[in-house]
């Protein structure tokens, strides 16, 4: 595990209009389906239900 603590960690979660959920910060993503824990700094999660790479956004939200 990496320790990149620069003072106070802050997680910023942004709902992008008609697009994914953008999460920036110190994150542990728990995927129950794949039984995985993924630490990451930024992630785009699909909100439209159409991505073929769920839970991640793959840009499919742009196709009408």
């Amino acid at each position: 595990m990496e320790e990149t603590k620069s003072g106070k960690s802050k997680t910023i979660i942004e709902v992008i209009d008609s697009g994914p959920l953008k999460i920036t910060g110190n994150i542990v993503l728990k995927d129950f389906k794949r039984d995985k824990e993924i630490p990451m700094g930024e992630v785009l999660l699909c909100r439209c239900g159409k991505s073929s790479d769920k839970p991640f956004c793959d840009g499919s939200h742009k196709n009408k």
Partner: protein
Amino acid sequence: MSRDQSFSGGRKYSNDEITVYWKPSACIHASYCYRELLEVFDPGRRPWVDMKGASTEKIIETVNMCPTEALTWKWNEEAKNQPVGSDQSNHIRFRRPELLAQDANAPEENPVTIKIMNDGPIVLKGDFSLAYSGINKDFREAIVSICRCGASEHQPFCDGQHRKIGFIG
């Protein structure tokens, strides 16, 4: 023996080994509990929790899947209730006044947990700021469910529509 009793904020249900607590106000109807274990959690039945419906082990497993704090559990034998790591939030946490004061000057933010529920929402938990439709809100020790199926009528939040549309993913 199965009992149905109330506690402040909800109801509790016991078998010989454990007690399950249900807080209706925290329930987002993500339906995890009854999709997994209808023998125990059946919203169409009164009382809706039947502790005789499955083994203690299976009940614990299902309660731990609840994305919110709506369902929690505890061993009846107090000595067995050891804290088991910060992520075991589904063990009911008692907050006595003296502990609340400690919480207040805790220097660290809660780590944020993001759970992807099977065929359901994204569940955000911890301290974070959330920006949506021009609003920017700070959350502390919060649990927020974000719709993943695209069908919620209360975007960006999950309102249970994923079940109606049969969302898979």
